[in-house]
């Protein structure tokens, strides 16, 4: 997976504690009694996935990984009476933080329900309507979980033929086309027909891009349920040129025909390029 396909610059509004709590809830675990090996492993696998997607991983995520491993390694070492204070501190501190965050997440859910209940009553000075703000209404970790499930499905070919790029534009088109016929699609469905790991990842990046551009939005009825992707009805604006080097409006070559495109202009096709892709079109 050396090909740096595309860089997504997503601000992360959710941190390492959110991820840990997410994993604990996903597996229906008890905060006071976390299977540390298992959770560490899962945590690191999410970090790997985020790295593979080139999501910017804040240093905090790495600090948490180190903390988890420290707790784990302590738990493997022989304990001597009186020398285990550190370990207990780290653990209980982490548990306390998770428990506190969990309480506030629950309080947030309560508030959300309260707002929904109060939302049908309007006051003067209220209808404070605003444009559909909708973008990502779900946790990034829910998205990542679906992606991981698809990647883990097996049967995906991991071999990459040189010169067979997976242009994100093609997947953007694919998703938009799926949404032409129907009001929404399941997140899982956007990966249909992908036989390569890179194709799946490209689909996912295309989705993130569409969300960021406010062309689609994602919804989830309740935690751990299927995620639905909706098309956002907006005055048609030309899709801004977000991928470097491609002229807006220029018909992008289909995947198979890509090699004739000048390579310099398409740094994402350059597998060994580890240099960060330019974020802005050259204007």
């Amino acid at each position: 997976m050396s090909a740096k396909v595309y860089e997504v610059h997503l601000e992360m509004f959710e941190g390492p504690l959110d991820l840990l709590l997410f994993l604990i809830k996903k597996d229906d675990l008890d905060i006071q009694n976390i299977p540390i090996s298992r959770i560490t492993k899962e945590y690191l696998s999410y970090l790997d996935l985020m790295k593979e997607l080139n999501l910017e991983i804040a240093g905090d995520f790495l600090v948490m990984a180190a903390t988890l491993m420290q707790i784990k390694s302590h738990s493997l070492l022989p304990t001597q009476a009186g020398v285990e204070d550190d370990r207990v501190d780290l653990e209980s501190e982490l548990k306390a933080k998770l428990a506190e965050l969990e309480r506030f997440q629950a309080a947030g859910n309560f508030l959300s329900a309260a707002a929904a209940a109060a939302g049908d009553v309007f006051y003067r000075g209220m209808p404070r309507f605003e444009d559909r703000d909708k973008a990502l209404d779900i946790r990034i970790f829910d998205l990542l979980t679906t992606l991981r499930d698809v990647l883990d499905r097996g049967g995906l070919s991991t071999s990459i033929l040189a010169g067979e790029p997976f242009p994100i534009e093609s997947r953007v088109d694919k998703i938009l086309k799926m949404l032409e016929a129907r009001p929404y699609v399941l997140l899982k469905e956007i990966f249909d027909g992908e036989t390569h790991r890179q194709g799946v990842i490209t689909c996912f990046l295309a989705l993130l891009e569409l969300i960021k551009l406010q062309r689609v939005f994602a919804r989830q009825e309740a935690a751990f349920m299927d995620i639905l992707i909706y098309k956002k009805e907006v005055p048609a604006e030309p899709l801004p040129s977000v991928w470097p080097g491609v002229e807006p409006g220029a018909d992008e070559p289909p995947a198979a025909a890509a090699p004739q495109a000048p390579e310099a202009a398409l740094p994402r096709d350059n597998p060994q390029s580890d240099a960060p892709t330019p974020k802005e079109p050259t204007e």
Partner: protein
Amino acid sequence: MSDENGDGAHLKQVVETLLFITDTPLGVAKIAQALGEKDQEKVASLIAELQKDYDQRGAALQVMEIAEGFQLATRADFAPYIRNLYKDRMTMRLSKPALETISIIAYKQPLTRAEVEEIRGVEVIAALETLLEKGLIRVVGRRETVGRPLLYGTTSEFLRHFGLRSIKDLPPIDSFTPPPEVPENMELPLGESPVAVAASQSSEGPEPDAGETDEAKDPV
């Protein structure tokens, strides 16, 4: 009701007018002040009467007690028509991180950004900006420590948005704690049940069971 009392009927109409025209909830004291009526009890009972009048007559509007005050409001039954009128647009919705952030502020106010971040474990600048912009929180002062950081608290708009009469309407934060299934025991290493601990102690080895020995990958 107090129809035989001309003065009462007049005052009630004034109260009604004020509750209609205001765009933020009015407290009893404020209404009393506008009425030139010193007796707040009397004002409160006028409001209660008005509330009952509206309900009994099946009026389209209602006198709502909200956000530490009173205000005329529409009824929930008619919400779809209001939405039709405003078509495409939607009432304010908050993302999960924003909701989490505002719940922390609501329960712990006043507090600084750093204190919110300590709990959430992630930067909250963007969430705070959103909440400030929507008028749900405001700066209420500065903490008198190094750097004199800003303190945030919730607003009256916060109460109205979440349908609360006052901040005391929030359930106690401890009510959100799920009942612990296992009694907390600080001596237990994470992830080992009492049984597993007992087993490893009896066999002299602190080595955990097979399930616990998975190699974790290096981070980074």
